[in-house]
C-alpha cells in the first residue's frame, strides 16, 4: 500500500463516526446508507490529493460528506445503482447490547433530525458533534450569527417534539 493510501486509511479510521452519522441521517434504509458511505468514501479519496491543509481534516470531511449526502438525498427517487458496488461494506457495526432507555431517546432524536430540511439537518449534526459556531459557519458557509439564530430555532423545535412524545 502506498504512503498516500495509508494516510487516507488513518484519516478515515479517525473520522469514521462522522461519515457513519451523516449517512445515517440522510438515508432511510440500510442499503442506501451503505451506498452513501461508499459514495462519500470515494469522493473523499478523489479529493484527498487536493486536500487543503488550511482546514482541519474534520472540516474537510464534514464538507465533502455533507455535500455528497445532500446531493444523494436530493437525487431522484429512481436512483441509478452505483457504477461498481463493492462486494462488502466499508463499515461493519457490531451491535451486541440491548436497547436502553437512552438508546430509545437516540432513535427518537434521529427520527426528529430526519424530519428536518437537508440544510437544517447539516446544522444540527454539527451542533451535536460539538462544533463551535465559527467552525459550523465555516463548514456550512453562512455567518456565525446566522448559525446561532438557526440553531436556536432548531433546538427549540427538537425540545417541543420530545416534550410531545414524552408527555
Amino acid at each position, binding site marked *: 500500500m502506498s504512503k498516500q493510501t495509508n494516510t487516507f486509511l488513518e484519516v478515515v479510521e479517525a473520522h469514521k463516526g462522522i461519515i457513519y452519522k451523516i449517512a445515517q441521517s440522510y438515508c432511510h434504509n440500510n442499503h442506501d446508507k451503505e451506498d452513501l458511505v461508499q459514495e462519500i468514501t470515494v469522493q473523499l479519496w478523489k479529493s484527498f490529493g487536493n486536500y487543503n491543509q488550511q482546514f482541519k481534516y474534520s472540516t474537510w470531511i464534514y*464538507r465533502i460528506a455533507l455535500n455528497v449526502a445532500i446531493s444523494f438525498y436530493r437525487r431522484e427517487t429512481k436512483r441509478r445503482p452505483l457504477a461498481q458496488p463493492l462486494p462488502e461494506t466499508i463499515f461493519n457495526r457490531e*451491535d451486541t447490547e440491548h436497547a436502553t432507555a437512552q438508546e430509545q431517546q*437516540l432513535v427518537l432524536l434521529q427520527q426528529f433530525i430526519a424530519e428536518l430540511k437537508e440544510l437544517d439537518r447539516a446544522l444540527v449534526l454539527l451542533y451535536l458533534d*460539538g462544533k463551535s459556531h465559527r467552525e459550523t459557519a465555516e463548514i456550512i458557509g453562512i455567518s456565525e450569527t446566522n448559525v446561532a439564530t438557526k440553531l436556536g430555532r432548531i433546538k427549540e423545535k427538537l425540545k417541543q417534539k420530545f416534550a410531545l412524545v414524552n408527555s
Partner: protein
Amino acid sequence: MTEVQLLQIWKSYDEKLEKSLLVNAKNIADIQKLKASSALHSLKGIKWLGILFGIVWVLFVGFLLWHSLSFSKLFFVVSAAIHLVVSVIAIGVYIKHLLLIHQFDNSQSIVEAQQKLVMLNTSSLQVLRLLLLQLPVFSTFYITFDWIQQSPLSFWLIQVPIVLLQAALGIWLYRNIHYKNHDKKWFKWLMGSGEFAPVKRAMDFLNEIETFKQEK
C-alpha cells in the same frame, strides 16, 4: 429534554460507534479503483450529447446555408444564419457548463457547493432561453419573394402577425424564464411536469438555499 441531555444522548451514540464501527481496510484500499457515481455524472453525459449533436446540426445547417447563398433565397439565408449563430452560442454555453462540472469541488462550503450544483442542474434553462429567442426563424425560413408578390394578403395578414407574435413570445420567454419566477403560475405550468420537473425541483431547492442564507 434539555440541551445537556440532547448532547449526552449524542455523545453516548458517538462513543458506541467508536467501539462498534470497524473500518474495512481492504475495501477502502479497493476504492482507489472505483469511479464515483457523483451527482454530476449524468449531467456530464447530457452536456456531451448536446455538444456532439449541436456540432453535427451546425455542420448540416452550415452546409445548407453555403449552398443557398443567393438573393432569391434571402429569407432562408437570413433565418438559417440566425439559427446557426444561436446554435453555436448554445454549444459554447454547453462547453462552459462542462468545464464548470469538471471544476466542481465537493470540499467547498455546503451552501456554496449546493448552490453551484443546483445552478448546474438548471443550466439547461439557459440554453432553452437562447433557443426560444430564435422562435421566429422557424416561420421565416420558407418565405419567398414569389409568395409575397402572388399572395400579399396571406403574407401580410397571416404570416407577418405570426412572425411578430413569435418574436414577442421568444423575447418575453427569454427574459422571464428564470428561477426567480419559480412561484409564478405560468412558470409552474411550463416547468412543473415532464422533462422539466427535475429542473423545477432544483429551483425550489435554490430558493430554499437563498432563504437559508438570510439572517432572519
